[in-house]
């Protein structure tokens, strides 16, 4: 008989990767171990193709378990991929998670509408960061 963890999962990292596989944004909600999240998310990219074949919609759901973290994927019609990494607490509802990804996608769209943004460059924007933080607060509570 296994004990179900009562603590709710919290978001650990969020990454946005271009169609070509270049990471343009990585936000970690745990200040330590940033390099680790780079590797984990990079590993998760491999699972995208497989999952995409199964799922027709943008939201790909849980794509992998790597080192005690759960990874969720989302691929937009433009080809950009959003990867969310959470710890192994009790997962939040998939409806909420889908809404979270939609929110991240919307923030990205508003960011990309800035005429001074060049395609496929790293995302450096205070408003974008603030929006992601607010969204994560709303959906995953505590940390930022």
């Amino acid at each position, binding site marked *: 008989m296994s004990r179900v963890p009562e603590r709710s999962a919290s978001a650990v990292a969020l990454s946005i990767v271009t169609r070509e596989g270049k990471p343009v944004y990585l936000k970690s909600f745990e200040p330590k171990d940033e390099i680790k999240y780079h590797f984990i998310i990079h590993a998760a990219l491999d699972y995208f193709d497989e999952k995409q074949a199964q799922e027709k919609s943008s939201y790909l759901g849980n794509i992998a378990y790597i080192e005690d973290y759960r990874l969720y994927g989302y691929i937009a019609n433009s080809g950009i991929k959003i990867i969310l990494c959470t710890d192994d607490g009790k997962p939040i509802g998939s409806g909420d998670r889908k809404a979270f990804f939609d929110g991240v996608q919307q923030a990205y769209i508003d960011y990309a*509408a*800035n*005429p*001074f943004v060049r395609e496929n460059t790293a995302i450096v*924007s205070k408003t974008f960061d603030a929006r992601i933080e607010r969204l994560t607060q709303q959906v995953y509570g505590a940390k930022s």
Partner: protein
Amino acid sequence: FRFVCGLSFEGQVLALRVRSATMSHQNPNTMGPAAWKGMDKMNSELFTLTYGALVAQLLRDHEDVDAVNAQLDKMGYNIGVRLIDEFLAKSNTERCANFETTANLVAKVGLKMFLGINANVEKWNSDKTACSITLSDNPFQAFVELPPSLSNLCYCNLMCGVIRGALEMVNRVVKCEFVKQKLHGADHDEIRLTLEEVKEDQPPPDDE
């Protein structure tokens, strides 16, 4: 002195406007929304993104930010000298008795009908020749964030050119510039409008 302006939307009738010497009793607060209702509308995001592409292209063409500011003003001027005809046709304005009326018409009717902007006129100087037009929302600059290297860019300078060009066609020479910009960190945009000269009506050139 008569000037012919515009076609009604049926496309057949020309409206004749006669110079009126009487004080205007029009209310810009109602004229603005009324004129706005009669205008064709376009998708605001398309407008914003097109303007953004225009500014980005100008920045690529001219290396210098001041040159881009000047170019935006010049383009706006060229638009303004033509836009005044449409403004006069669609807004049913009468001749302005003073600059205060003019400024109110620009802010409450002009900006409203062409851009949907709700603007206010304030900070008049003592002899009523200069004022500030404050805007809280501006469709040109939605989604825009200026990178630090472009902190001198007056992104919406086109608007100043339009106002300057349009007013020059009705014989008011003005200086028009942004003194506060949301993109530079202020909480609203503020355009300072200063009347420099009222020109006399010129007779039409002789056909000899």
